[in-house]
């Protein structure tokens, strides 16, 4: 994998989980990193950890669902680092439940964070990429965009993210900006470790590989799409799910 020396990367929701791991891997390859999250203590801590490793990093606490906050974030990143080459729309959350139990708030929050946030960030960033003659946008969707019982808002939002990916790939292709989407399957999180063993085994029984993935698997896939050599790959949905997307049931 080639270096990312001098590239500037904004990763949303990067104060935890796979966003943080991705940011770490990008920084190790020489990228300047903009950490974003909605939880300020986690942003501070991540920035501290990255600075301690000698990385060029800045933190921005911003709610990606708010136009003004997003514009402010992008402006301060470009002021600090001079440009923006890479956007990873990673921030996400889920309000789950059966159709009759879901509230309008559950829908709005889930769709806003997972879909509207990616739209606003892409909109705010793409001009800077075009100015530099190219860029990379990677959206973190989910295998659940294929549909999942109890996941109406999340699945709809992630399916929307697939449509956004394909549309922006068409709009920005001639400008040297590729837009792709990664659909993770079940990935190891702190929440996973807290599940009762019975529930974990239930999930594992549906994994063709018999195991869940790690943050590292997603970070590797993101890096694959960010490389200069990936310039002929755009508009794709790429599953990192241990084969779960092949599996009925």
């Amino acid at each position, binding site marked *: 994998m080639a270096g990312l020396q001098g590239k500037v990367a904004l990763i949303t929701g990067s104060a935890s989980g796979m966003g943080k791991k991705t940011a770490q891997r990008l920084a190790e390859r020489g990228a300047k990193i903009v950490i974003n999250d909605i939880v300020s203590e986690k942003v501070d801590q991540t920035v501290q950890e990255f600075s301690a490793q000698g990385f060029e990093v800045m933190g921005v606490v911003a709610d990606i669902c708010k136009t003004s906050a997003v514009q402010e974030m992008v402006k301060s990143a470009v002021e600090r680092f001079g440009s923006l080459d890479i956007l990873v729309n990673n921030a996400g959350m889920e309000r789950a439940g059966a159709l009759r139990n879901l509230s309008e708030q559950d829908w709005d929050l889930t769709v806003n964070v997972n879909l509207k946030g990616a739209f606003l960030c892409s909109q705010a960033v793409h001009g800077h990429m075009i100015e530099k003659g190219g860029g990379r946008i990677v959206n973190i969707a989910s295998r659940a965009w294929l549909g999942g019982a109890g996941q109406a808002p999340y699945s709809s939002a992630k399916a929307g993210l*697939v449509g956004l990916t*394909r549309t922006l*790939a*068409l709009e920005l*292709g*001639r400008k*040297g900006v*590729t837009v792709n989407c990664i659909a993770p*399957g079940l990935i190891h999180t702190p929440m996973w470790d807290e599940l009762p063993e019975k529930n974990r085994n239930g999930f594992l029984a549906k994994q*063709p*590989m*018999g195991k869940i*993935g*790690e943050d590292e*698997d997603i970070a*590797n*896939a993101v890096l*694959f799409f960010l*490389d200069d*050599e*990936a*310039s*002929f*790959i*755009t*508009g*794709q*949905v*790429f*599953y*990192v*799910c*241990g*084969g779960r*997307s*092949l*599996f009925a049931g």
Partner: protein
Amino acid sequence: MKDRTALIVGAANDIGGAISVKFAGRGARLVLIDSDQQKLEKVFAKVAAAGAKAECIAVDWANSAAVTSAVDTIVKKYGALDILVNAIDQRDGVPITEGTVETWERSLKENITPLVSFSLNVIPVMRNQKYGRIVNIGSLEYLGTPKQANYSAAKSAIFGLTRSFALELAKDGITVNQILKGDVKTAECPLSPEEEEKGAAQLPVQRLGKPEDIAYAAAYLASGLSGYVTGQNLIVCGGKSIYSSMSA
């Protein structure tokens, strides 16, 4: 993939050649295989000149005994076989009016039989090792192309094979994936400058693909970095697939 042993089947065509060069650069030990000895030796010379640990073997892959014997020889020699790339790709351009059962069978024999034959011989070795990477080179033309019905159907077969193998091998540390190439300019599909310009204008990224674009993707799927990816289609097409259903 440093020091991994990789079999590149179809190494003599432009894409197989680019994959060989790319893998050599990543430190793999290469065995280049093709049925066309002359072309194979040309590619081999290029790879060897780059300082790769490589050898080449001409195999008449229509003959399943020849495939078995080639794989046996390699395994005996290196003690391992980690990566199999199936890069055979034969368009035939036969229109319906000229199609016969013979042209149909020939297309399947050329495109698919060697893929199956090499896979069946290599998989037991990978199973023993509890590690393997199989990368099949498909084509977006599986979606249907005028005058390429045979080729399109042969490439469609790669779907079922890739996904079935992937599921059957999921617990053995072996991943099986497919790269679908879009419009790639190669020696096998020569284009006039006008055709190239017209083709490029139709793609979202405004250029045709290069064999190196496919090689880059193959390197990821053949590496240790893609261990949680199996049964997938990675479409490398400059965005052409977006215009089509059955592409997400």
